């Protein structure tokens, strides 16, 4: 009947009008761009990926993840922004003379968020749990043969072999201490049970989108953390992340070099620090599949072939500095002279190739790794210029790891971050990054000396020896040290964490 039609239509119309009216009126008073609703002592940071699990065995050392789990978990040692070590849950630490026992004095009176106390037994439980897991970090604690609680607040690590990176790693994921009760449960993946300066607000958080941490006033170093609340928002898309920073919805976020100019124009503060080196890894140093690479002159020629500064300017917008070494500026072992060791010189490259017996160049196959796809054509182009004919091999995303670490490629584009000691351990035949298990007696000698260096001066000197050897022998062809870029609003000050993508959470402070 017509009357009922009319009624139905007017209901629809009324609903539509209501929606429009509501949007119109809220549109007017919605002038705030976001920001202050959670109090002045709230720090909001944007990140690009979510933290999938709080299980200590699922945590790992590098990248952005640190920012997300470090607030809730204390480690045995604390890392400083310049990669130094400070007391954490361990207040003192020392190796014995033979570097086979590491003794840790533990902090007294620490409790976990579930009320359990932190003791030497806790350390034993955590290290053993990690060792037994299929975690990435299990390899780091593998040399710890036995964890021996000496008393309530003293623990000894009995080492099967000495690893100079162990102490540093105890400041990262391998040193995370969680309540023994929670270890190995499904629950800890979702809810961390640590003793960190903050605790997770499980109710307020939306997994994969927004994590909220509330300050733990009981924490032994509470004063070092000025914010009452931390909010981490996930923005996978760089544009969304940048927009969130520009609109003040977050106080800080990591961005890409391509977005840096826009961020700067919007009045954001840019903090950049060398995060790692980028270039071509020359792995087949014994010439197993690419015989030409066995000749050091060929590897040096490849180093000369790249116009490092031009690549840096074009691809990274100049965020970084051109170099021929893998050690970052300001880190132990860095040698300023090595930055220019292989300054761009295609003529020199051709001469070296001729000397090595390849006046007409040779053929080299490079895999087109999906995550380094931007660099593959550059490599082909630059090497062709000195006579090396590059064949680009397509790589499916699912085959990336096999192509990289399976020993199928003599050389490929790589990006490698981390500390100076990380650069050194990557040379070891144990490392996945030493793909063809290259060895050299002289290098091994230099490395073993460097491993035992514990004092700063001594480290700098011995690392420098290793560094110089690796550069001279052209084990890699680095182009530049690439910066990580973090933007912050005027509300916040931050100190970068050298060699890392994001700053440490303790480095943020409200601007005066």
């Amino acid at each position, binding site marked *: 009947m017509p009357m009922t039609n009319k009624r139905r239509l007017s209901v629809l119309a009324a609903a539509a009008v209501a929606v429009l009216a509501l949007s119109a009126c809220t549109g007017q008073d919605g002038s705030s761009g976001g920001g202050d609703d959670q109090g002045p002592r709230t720090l909001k940071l944007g990140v690009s990926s979510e933290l999938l699990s709080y299980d200590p065995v699922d945590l790992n050392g590098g990248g952005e993840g640190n920012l997300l789990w470090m607030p809730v978990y204390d480690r045995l040692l604390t890392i400083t922004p310049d990669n130094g070590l400070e007391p954490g849950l361990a207040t003192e630490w020392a190796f014995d003379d033979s570097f086979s026992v590491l003794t840790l004095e533990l902090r007294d009176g620490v409790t976990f968020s579930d009320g359990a106390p932190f003791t030497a037994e806790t350390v034993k439980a955590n290290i053993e749990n990690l060792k037994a897991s*299929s975690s*990435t970090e299990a390899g780091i604690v593998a040399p710890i043969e036995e964890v021996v609680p000496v008393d309530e607040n003293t623990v000894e690590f009995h080492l099967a072999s000495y690893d100079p990176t162990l102490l540093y790693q105890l400041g990262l994921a391998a040193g995370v201490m969680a309540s023994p009760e929670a270890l190995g449960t499904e629950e800890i993946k979702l809810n961390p049970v640590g003793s960190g300066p903050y605790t997770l607000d499980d109710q307020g958080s939306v*997994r994969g989108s927004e994590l909220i941490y509330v300050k733990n006033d009981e924490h032994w170093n509470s004063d070092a953390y000025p914010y009452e609340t931390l909010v981490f928002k996930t923005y996978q898309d760089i*544009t969304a992340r940048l927009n969130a920073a520009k*609109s003040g*919805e977050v106080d800080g976020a990591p961005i890409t070099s391509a977005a840096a100019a826009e961020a700067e124009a919007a009045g954001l503060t840019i903090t950049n620090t060398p995060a790692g080196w980028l270039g071509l890894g020359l792995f087949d140093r014994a010439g197993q599949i690419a015989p030409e690479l066995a000749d050091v002159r060929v590897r040096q020629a490849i180093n000369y072939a790249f116009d490092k500064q031009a690549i840096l300017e074009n691809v990274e917008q100049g965020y970084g500095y051109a170099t021929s070494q893998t050690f970052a500026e300001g880190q132990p072992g860095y040698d300023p002279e090595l930055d220019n060791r292989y300054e761009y010189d295609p003529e020199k490259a051709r001469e070296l190739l001729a000397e090595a017996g390849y006046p007409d160049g040779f053929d080299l196959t490079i895999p087109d790794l999906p995550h380094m796809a931007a660099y593959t054509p550059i490599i082909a182009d630059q090497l062709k210029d000195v006579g090396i004919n590059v064949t680009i091999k397509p790589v499916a995303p699912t085959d990336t790891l096999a192509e990289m670490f399976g020993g199928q490629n003599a050389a490929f584009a790589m990006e490698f971050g981390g500390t100076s000691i990380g650069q050194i351990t990557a040379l070891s035949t144990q490392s*996945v990054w030493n793909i063809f298990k290259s060895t050299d007696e002289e290098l091994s000698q230099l490395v073993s000396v460097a491993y035992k260096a514990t004092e700063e001066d001594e480290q700098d000197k011995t690392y420098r020896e290793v560094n110089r050897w690796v550069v001279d022998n052209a084990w890699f062809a680095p182009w530049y040290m690439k910066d990580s870029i973090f933007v912050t609003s005027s509300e916040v000050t931050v100190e970068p964490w050298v060699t890392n993508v994001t700053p440490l959470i303790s480095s943020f402070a409200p601007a005066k």
Partner: protein
Amino acid sequence: MVAFICRRLLSGVALVFVVSALTAFLIFAGGMDIARNILGTNATEEQVAQRAAELGLDRPAWQQYADWLGAALTGDLGRSYFSSEPVLQALSTRLPVTLSVVLTAVLVTAVLSAALGVLAAVRRGWVDRFVQLANVVVGAIPNFWLALVLVSVFALNLRLFPATGYVPFLESPAGWLLSITLPVASLVIGGLGAAMIVRSSVIDVLRLDFVRTLRSRGLSQREVLTKHVMRNAAPPFLTVMSLAFIGMFGGAVVIEKVFAIPGVGTLANNAAQRGDVPLVLGVVSVTVAVVVVVNLVIDILNGWLNPKVRVQ
């Protein structure tokens, strides 16, 4: 009617089976090393094999799917391989977010395109030409680009709306509305092509003799439109709306990314990239179910508005 609904629901269930089976097949056939993804680049082969065995990833694909299906039929969608979050819980936090954006967008699209389409059909002349031109222009704009422009104008410059994020309705209705305005607008503008469907079907109906009869009796344009024309023009419009719903559900993946909205689109996208099988299958199945239900609702609405298409 009841039989019709049952039949449609049954075919919907069948569709869920087929789509989830296909999805499972695609994941497993992709040869993705899921255990390796979970453990990262530094894990040894032994560790990877151990984790694969723990998760049952070393068994044949059909067996894994059958296990999932068996559990799913009892209401257990399992837990994420990566975060261990129950899939149902993940869906219950994500799906309402996407639905609130998409359904609002569909509703606004329906109202606007109906209004514009009727206006163009009735007024013709410059209004009609404007609507047609706008339709072509709008149809050529990609969703994400539009979203970026909207953010830069209305969020970053005018500061009227937040640039990113989502506020749940229960937390703050006004905040919710502000947070979904730009995402909804980017979806709606792309969906306004439906106005052209309304326009042509209204024009078709206006040409019919029964409309002339009504006019000859002095009925006003408004009466003719609301009482007699709209119902007849509704079926193609509702069909387009149900397609728009599906399209917007798909488009939400992009929109959620640009606006950093924690919806089911980003969840599915991430899960698929990682090879989080339980999560992917859960999202896919529930999404298909939602689409089936919405289409059913639209069909019923269609029959209610217009007996011409009512099922016997």
